[in-house]
């Protein structure tokens, strides 16, 4: 009986506020160590910088809930940025460039979904393969150099304001609202955890699980295409390795946010908190003049610790 209560309180304590504890602790540490941390411009900056990551982490949550993984999303984002810049330069139109970025993102997402759902190739190797393809395309298109000279109107999307709110935050809020709506208020959303937890049952219920998987990976690609607009705007150019490796931060945010890698259980608000946690961690370490190598190690350790507690919780159940 008491063991049940213990397990329950551990699952409540370990699940819901776990990431919140980490976030509060990090904020407290950085606020006390670095005077520049808890200023309004810096905190706004953290949120704005986190918006690109959120666009990747939201669909990553869906994907991980299906017991999948998308290692290609950082490379697809980079490819989207390269395509956006190349097409915008060639046609002189940002809109056409953006549509091209969305199209290439969606195409890669659907390709991932097709390889995983129809050809039954394990997600991590599928997306490792498409990572190579996307990265290769980036290098081939740019010949390894940056694409510069983009229209100045591009800067609005990362640095501009809409009704006084930084534009990336508007995009991030809309994306969160849409993904929240899909996950918790549509039939598609009910299929997502079922794909991870009980795919057989879903199939028996007459749901075409392959189409659903393809849609989920497709959404991931599309979001990478949207993120490409923000990324390109942020650096005012496209670079073939600009967001290579960002998939790790996205996966880390999802893991830290408490989504399970093996049982179809996920929590979108947790992912939002996870994204902010990673943003705070990187920003704080930056202010403390820690090199990016230390940041990467810290994010990696954070993931391992999160998964460790996850494993302990599993052992209790």
């Amino acid at each position, binding site marked *: 009986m008491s063991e049940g209560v213990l397990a329950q309180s551990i699952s409540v304590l370990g699940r819901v506020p776990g990431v919140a504890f980490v976030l509060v602790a990090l904020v407290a540490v950085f606020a006390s160590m670095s005077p520049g941390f808890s200023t309004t411009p810096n905190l706004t900056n953290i949120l704005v910088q986190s918006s690109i990551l959120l666009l990747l982490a939201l669909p990553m949550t869906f994907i991980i809930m299906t017991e999948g993984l998308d290692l290609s999303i950082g490379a697809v984002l980079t490819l989207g940025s390269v395509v956006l810049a190349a097409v915008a330069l060639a046609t002189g139109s940002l809109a056409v460039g953006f549509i091209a970025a969305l199209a290439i993102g969606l195409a890669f997402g659907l390709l991932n979904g097709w390889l995983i759902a129809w050809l039954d190739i394990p997600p991590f190797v599928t997306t490792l393969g498409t990572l190579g393809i996307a*990265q290769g395309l980036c290098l081939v298109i740019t010949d390894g150099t940056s694409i510069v000279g983009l229209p100045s109107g591009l800067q609005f999307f990362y640095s501009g304001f809409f009704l006084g709110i930084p534009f990336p935050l508007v995009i991030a809020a809309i994306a969160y609202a849409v993904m929240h709506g899909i996950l918790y208020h549509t039939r598609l959303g009910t299929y997502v955890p079922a794909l991870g937890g009980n795919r057989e049952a879903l199939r028996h219920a007459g749901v075409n699980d392959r189409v659903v998987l393809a849609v989920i990976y497709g959404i991931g690609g599309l979001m990478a295409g949207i993120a490409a607009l923000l990324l390109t705007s942020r650096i005012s150019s496209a670079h073939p390795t600009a967001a290579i490796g960002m998939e790790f931060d996205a996966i880390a945010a999802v893991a830290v946010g408490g989504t399970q890698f093996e049982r179809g259980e996920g929590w979108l608000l947790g992912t939002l908190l996870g994204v902010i946690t990673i943003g705070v961690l990187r920003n704080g370490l930056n202010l403390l003049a820690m090199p990016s190598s230390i940041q990467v190690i810290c994010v990696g350790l954070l993931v391992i610790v999160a*998964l460790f507690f996850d494993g302990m919780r599993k052992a209790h159940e």
Partner: protein
Amino acid sequence: MSQIDAAAPKLKLTLSRDVTDVAYRLLAVALICVTLSLVSDAFLTANNLLNVLRQASLVFFMASGLTLVILTGKIDLSIGATVGLSACVAATMIKSTGSPWLGAAAAIGVGSIVGLGNGLMVTKLRIPSFIATYGMLWVAQGATYYYMSGQSVYGFPAGFRALGSGYLLGIPIPIYLMVAFLAIGYFFTKRTTYGQQIYAIGANTVAARLSGIPVNSRLNLVFVLSGAMAGLASLIYLARLNSAEGDIGETLTLPTIAAVVIGGTSLFGGVGSLFGTFIGGLILTLILNGMNLLNLNANWQPLVTGLIVLLAVWLDMKTRSKTDSN
């Protein structure tokens, strides 16, 4: 007793599959060689062929440990980063002490420690191997960058460099090492209880556990071996390049996984062989060598490698589902 009965026919099937698998892949090697010798005069020269084998040997060292991991049904995505970290630690060790032996010990030690970390995360913390080793990838890579802090270390003693670029009787030394490790690996996987247990864990982990195989300790062993082989590979790489930088291992993971899957080792465990991995590495190296000879820009390499990985896994799954339904 009944266990042995049940295992016997399965084992036979696996072995015969190995033979046909290898035969198909040797055919692929022959086809690629014929094609390349037709399109490029430079291909069929002793120099180029030895160079292909030398490069294939490096792939083999990285991929052989990974093969053992994949045979158990797990994965090690940290290989490239492990090679990078081992190479950098070994490089500074050799420079500061002047002793290649200490460098070798450091490389293999670092690789083994990383591998043990992977193993413990999988067996003790029960983190899925793809995510545990993916986290390790970034930790090891971050550690490498931090350790090197943008510097490069170069210029090693000639005796050490011979490990990567030396010749014995006209044949590059890494090729001898590869043949030796292929022989040891064959004996280990096919002729020892350890090897059989590795196959059994991959074929059916629950059954393996129930039949008394110490699954966790074997999993730790394969992850440590994978790390140690990455450490060994890093030495040969280092001896060949004669320099080490922080990004040395960054692009190595995808080709390594490619070699294993082209070689016919199933990502679901239990099926495959080290010899297959050798052939897989050879096929990959031949294709990349051909691209080189045809003056195709190196920027195409990740794209082609990615396509090859997907094609190889898809072909493998296709033939497997056919034989399974028979």
